[in-house]
């Protein structure tokens, strides 16, 4: 899933590793526009080779809007060309097939898209992909060690901290951060600092219990 070969060639440009610094966004963008095929400018899932001759380049997506970024995603360095306006969530879901983070509201208000950037939890739908250049991005797919679940994942199962499961990846990423931030000393604090993540099924009791259990085990070493 993570290797370059599996990405459609026309939605992921070949890695260009030399000579471009992370700060030359505009310059890279201009260069990319002249170098890469059309499809690159439309980095959405269905932008595979146009099947219809009528298709024309979208004017707004042409020159100047493509940036190259090199985040480390779940421990693997990726070099990607993205439309400068692409959200991190769309990058993860539409380009990298990391669909664990969900698009709940697309307005940064529900928390279903929560991932970690440099150890901090962010709403990936409100984070520009261009901003994670050089950053460490951690998603739900990257927290377990092979087959072994992360303790928080196991705690969610043990405490029935989920129903439909749609908010769960975001809840778990927020919960891990909540503990790392030191905001899990008691149930009231957990409730306060988890409030950015909505669970419409109302599995809050179980989630708080799961976070409390892991926080306790972290405290007790």
């Amino acid at each position, binding site marked *: 899933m993570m290797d370059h070969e599996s990405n459609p060639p026309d939605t992921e440009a070949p890695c260009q590793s030399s000579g471009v610094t992370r700060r030359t966004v505009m310059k890279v963008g201009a260069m990319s526009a002249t170098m890469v095929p059309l499809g690159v400018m*439309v980095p*959405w*899932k*269905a932008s*595979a080779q146009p*099947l*219809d001759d*009528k*298709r*024309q*380049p*979208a004017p707004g997506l042409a020159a100047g809007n493509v940036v190259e970024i090199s985040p480390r995603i779940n421990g693997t360095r990726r070099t990607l060309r993205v439309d400068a306006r692409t959200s991190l969530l769309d990058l993860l*879901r539409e380009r990298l097939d990391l*669909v*664990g*983070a*969900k*698009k*709940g509201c697309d*307005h940064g*208000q*529900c928390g*279903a898209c929560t991932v970690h950037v440099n150890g901090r939890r962010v709403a990936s739908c409100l984070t520009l992909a261009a901003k994670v250049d050089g950053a460490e991005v951690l998603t*739900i*797919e990257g927290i*377990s060690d092979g087959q072994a*679940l992360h303790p928080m*994942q*196991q705690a*969610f*199962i043990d*405490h*029935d901290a*989920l*129903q*439909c*499961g*749609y908010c*769960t*990846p975001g809840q778990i990423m927020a919960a891990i951060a909540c503990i790392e931030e030191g905001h899990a000393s*008691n*149930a*009231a604090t957990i*409730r*306060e600092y*988890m*409030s950015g*993540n*909505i669970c*419409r*099924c*109302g*599995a*809050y*009791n*179980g*989630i*708080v*219990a799961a976070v*409390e259990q892991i926080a306790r085990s972290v405290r007790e070493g």
Partner: protein
Amino acid sequence: MRTLTKRVFNTSRATAETTAETDQSQEAAMSEPLLALRIESESTGTGEAFGRLEGDEPVARDTVTPRPARENSRHAQAHESAIKHVTGRARYIDDLPAPHGALHAMVGLSDVAHGRITRLDLGAVMEMPGVIDVITAQHIPGHRDIGPVFPGDPMLADEEVSYVGQPLFAIAATSYLEARRAVKAAVVEIAPLPPRFDPVAAADAGEFVRPTHVQMSGDWQQALEHAPHVLEAEQFVGGQEHFYLEGQACLVVPGEDEGVTVYTSNQHPSETQKLVAEVLDIPFHAVTVENRRMGGGFGGKETQAAPWACMAALLARRTGRAIRLRLPRAEDTRATGKRHPFHNRYRLGFDDEGVILGGDMTLIGDCGHSPDLSEAVVDRAMFHADNAYSLGAARVTGHRARTHMASNTAFRGFGGPQGMMIVEQAMDDIARHVGEDPLTVRKRNLYRIGRDTTHYGQHVDQYPLMVEIIERLERSSDYWQRRDEIRAFNRQSAVIKRGLALTPVKFGISFTAKHLNQAGALLHVYTDGSVMINHGGTEMGQGLHTKVCQVVARELGIDFESVRISATRTDKVPNTSPTAASSGADLNGMAARDAATQIRQRLLDFAAEHYQFDREGLHLENGKLVSDIGAVTPAVSWGELIQAAYLGRVSLSATGFYSTPLIHYDRDSGQGRPFYYFAYGASVSEVRVDTLSGEYRVERVDILHDVGDSLNPAIDLGQVEGGFIQGMGWLTSEELKWNDDGRLLTDGPATYKIPTFGDLPPIFNVELLEGHPNSQASLYRSKAVGEPPFMLGISVWSALRDALSSLTGYRVSPPLDTPATPERVLMAAEALRAGPANVGASR
């Protein structure tokens, strides 16, 4: 002492526990002799209380005698997809990889609530980058009206538009962004007509989507004339947005024939199959609809997931390419219907003790522009206008008002909660009038001997359970001690007022549309012994698939892990009912049980002959063939048995079927037995209100809820907790606001406030009532749990009224429309402070 399955949660102790399971059925028999006797007498008395009407089929026979609790079904089995959920590997519709060349669809919506389309020019849309196809009503080869039960829902508006957000056209483009941009290039001109947004005015004008229905018991007019006291009041009960976290989404792939395969987030695959086929004008067998799971449904995907599948299917057939359709959140919220807002009125007569003698109730459901499911929704509101109380000689009238809004639809409780609200208001009002505590008046009005039949003629089975639940909850929550403390506190505190309320729930289980009470299942055993079960129900987080797998594992005596569900597919189990009315496990679990029972019988018959065992006493347990009489030697494992059965040419596949017995309802007379049984529960809520700002907190909640013999206590507890929270949200923070043009302003989580972690009561004690199996022959004597707990949230609203009432020394019962936002609470408090003359309604 019976053991209780409970989860205790509070800040001080912060424990979460599930007590160990015990052999409930035996214990129940010992501790509840009266109830047990009652069950026995019913089973032998009428001969129709259990099982199917014929009474001689395997399913019916097996349910009469409760089986020993050795099976793994009673385990608090984790959700079957739990590991996939926590690892992000569970796939929802928009996570599915699309076939090569898939297009993105987007829908153009009306900006006008009511009007005639004078121009719909999509030439510019077609010229937009990436656009491949555009459809309007004119392009539909088959049915243009996709009303699920009654006509009235055009797939795409033709001449008239009826609400803001109504689909006008749909497009397909090569990317999601291009599709969104292209929609905006449409030139739409609509000549406005006068819109109607007020359901009461609509009802007065006779503007209904369906005819008015009336239920009557006895001479209600005489009861009112002779009653020592009469009160009347009205209330507005707000709607509710489903806010399923996974929005409406589908992926449609054209097939090699004339058909399509539809992957959809959908509670009713069979209906979507029908509607897609009718829109495309092709046979039903050309359309396959599949759903593996939903990211929440709550009723919002019962009928209203179908239109998007229909549009995507038409685009897929026209372009020959797969179509993805995912509504942006704001458009999803505007385009789809919600819980029906209701205007309710009562005029009730009662005696000096506050016991209702009879009266009149009117319920006006705001249905939006079309019937959708409103006939049944308002019916269910009427069926629950009594909640747990005898109304005496009463008339209940239900109107279905037509307004220029999105067509309101199913939402957990399906009208039941809105109906209950009026009688719960009456209970509070009557209590203030006779100077009693509301709990006292509620208890006096409960169904009891001599008052045990509803206003629609159904005998209330198991009504003593309601009394027991309330009395136990009174004790476990220290209701009366806290009542005294709160009264004392309120006398001292001028601004902060505390409120307390205990409200019961009695909820009828069955679809009120009788034909929907059927289910099918398909069970395969493969030669390695692994089992595949498919059934007609859909999984939306309620744990249905988990429960059905448990049923099959229990019937076949094998591990839960040996049983798997692939997805709900119309080509596996046909002609299914929606997963709704809390009936998913009741119906589909029974169908799966029927299939598993057939396989078991076949295997045991085969084993007796093949291994020369005595057929009698032979059964399957713990993955082995065992016998009650003598040892099975040599031992035969499940896997060996299956291998041998295959070689012996025994069919290892079966279809199962179930239809709920006994239920009937005559709409002409308004009388019948629409419900197979009732589920019960009660909750106590305590609130603390700042009467100068209207802000409040829910401080403590205690719940005791009846699920019969639980199929899965862990899942059921989650349903009770989640249902309560969702019900509380409906009545407190979830406010829908439209502007004067009928445009929904609260179309996202920034403005529409659903409960979050911070709204969780700091003390939240939830218990399942144990030791009371269902008196009817339901699945292992369990009870449905999806909807009933939702109405436990009513205690929060009643507690707010209690706190407000303290401003008048508990003499005045303040009207409090819902949602009872801080704004409404403040206005109610100010009206009370200004004097009773300003309070209106219930005096």
